[in-house]
């Protein structure tokens, strides 16, 4: 099993604050990998280091090749990053958001993919012209997810999809992610504070503490780990 994404000793800082202190992790092709940890542990920065929205050192390999450069280049390489806090263009319509998701693609089947998205998210059909900013929080998160999928990414990176959403909607979003993974073999790297649902969805997980990987392993083994259970699962 080869790793689609591999981070080797990645460090990043915001001014004087070192956010990542040497993160190494692997995301095998076709799997869902979760990154857990408290606020400020470096989860979001890990994703930002991959997508090139923060300066970093260390090596990042994507499909065996060094990944470097700007966010535009990373998007083009096939990595879709759904940032924290509903990454949608609030002033553009739902359909325009979806069309933008397909921006890096050269083929003409964008319409077909929009229909495919409407199968996952039926409300897209009748509300295509609605301004994205007027959608509910859950719908915006789903739109952000759909937009990311429009680029037909090889790797989907989700940052805290559960943030501020009702439990039922969170379950629905993770159900769709799992479905995409099972049916289409989509590789997913998800950062999540809700450890329970993340471990239920992912095969492997990494727990970060102050910018380092504290524990990692299969979701099943982490659920058994006392420290992880106490700190993140709360029982």
């Amino acid at each position, binding site marked *: 099993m080869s790793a689609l994404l591999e981070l080797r000793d990645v460090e990043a800082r915001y001014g004087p604050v070192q956010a990542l202190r040497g993160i190494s992790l692997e995301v095998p092709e076709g799997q869902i990998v979760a990154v857990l940890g408290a606020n400020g542990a470096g989860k979001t920065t890990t994703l930002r280091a991959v997508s090139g929205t923060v300066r970093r050192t260390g090596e990042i390999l994507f499909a065996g090749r060094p990944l470097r450069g700007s966010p535009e280049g990373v*998007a*083009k390489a096939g990595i879709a990053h759904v940032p924290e806090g509903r990454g949608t*263009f*609030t*002033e553009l319509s739902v359909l325009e958001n979806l069309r933008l998701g397909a921006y890096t693609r050269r083929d003409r089947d964008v319409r077909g993919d929009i229909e495919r998205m409407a199968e996952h998210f039926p409300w897209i059909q009748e509300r295509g012209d609605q301004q994205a*900013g*007027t*959608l509910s929080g859950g719908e915006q998160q789903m739109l952000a997810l759909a937009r990311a999928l429009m680029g037909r990414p090889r790797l989907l990176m989700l940052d805290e999809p559960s943030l501020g959403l009702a439990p039922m909607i969170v379950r629905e979003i993770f159900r769709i992610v799992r479905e995409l993974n099972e049916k289409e073999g989509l590789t997913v790297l998800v950062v999540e504070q809700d450890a329970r649902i993340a471990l239920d969805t992912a095969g492997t997980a990494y727990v970060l503490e102050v910018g380092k990987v504290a524990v990692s392993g299969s979701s099943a083994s982490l659920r058994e780990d006392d420290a992880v259970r106490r700190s993140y699962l709360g029982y």
Partner: protein
Amino acid sequence: MTEFFQQVVSGLASGGVYGSLALALVLIHRATGVINFAQGEMAAFSTYIVWTLTTNHGWSYWPAFAATLVVSFAGGVGIHQVVIRPVERGSQIRVVIVTIGLLLLINGSMTWIWSGEVRSVKSPFPTRTVDIGGVAISLQDIGTIAVSLGTVILLWLFFRFTKVGLAMRASAVNPAEARLVGVRVAWMLGLGWGLAAVLGAIAGMLTAPSVFLDPTMMQAILIYAFAAAVLGGIDSPIGAVVGGLLLGVGLNLIGAYVDFVGADLRLPAALLVILVVLLLKPAGIFGKQHVRKV
């Protein structure tokens, strides 16, 4: 009544010019968040190009017009790449100061290249009038309205229906997000400057026949364009055009029917519009409060 309609039509013609230049201001304001004070001088410079091509090189008007648009587009992109982009990341006041510097630079270079002498630019439209329902309307006015509104419609189609147009809008409203979907935001901003320069060039070329061409030709027009953009809503492209037309017609009618407002008071009237709108409805007619559900 006949005179009233004539005033309205000629108001629409000058309003089309204000609207085009206002639209240029709005494009750059949406993308960069600043008012481009050099917009008027850029337009005047473009007008000198069409004058040089037609007068000194014997080009006929429309090829020269098209060539001027191409050169202006390249110039706009170039200005963005060379002088705006390096300061874009800092505070907006830096960009504003750079545009004021550009104003002086372009103004000075026009005087240097073409001397400050007043030139006359011929009109592409015949000077005749046509009779429409008993109202004599000049073809010059009709042509001006047609060209400026045609440009606006083309631009609207471009933003609404093309991939690049959509990417430009995305870059303007949320640049960080746009980069994540793979849009080269810096190029899109440059493209915006290019389009703004084209709009300015059109406004300048439509203005020149009815006034005379000199390096300060567009300075008053720029004030009207500010007023139009503020009236319509500084972030609203439709607002810029509607604001321009309203202002053009309004100023014309006031000039014709209110005795004490002659040509002298047109400019102060435009400034009054800016002041009143900013005091009573700062967002303008079409400027909307951003709708957002959290």
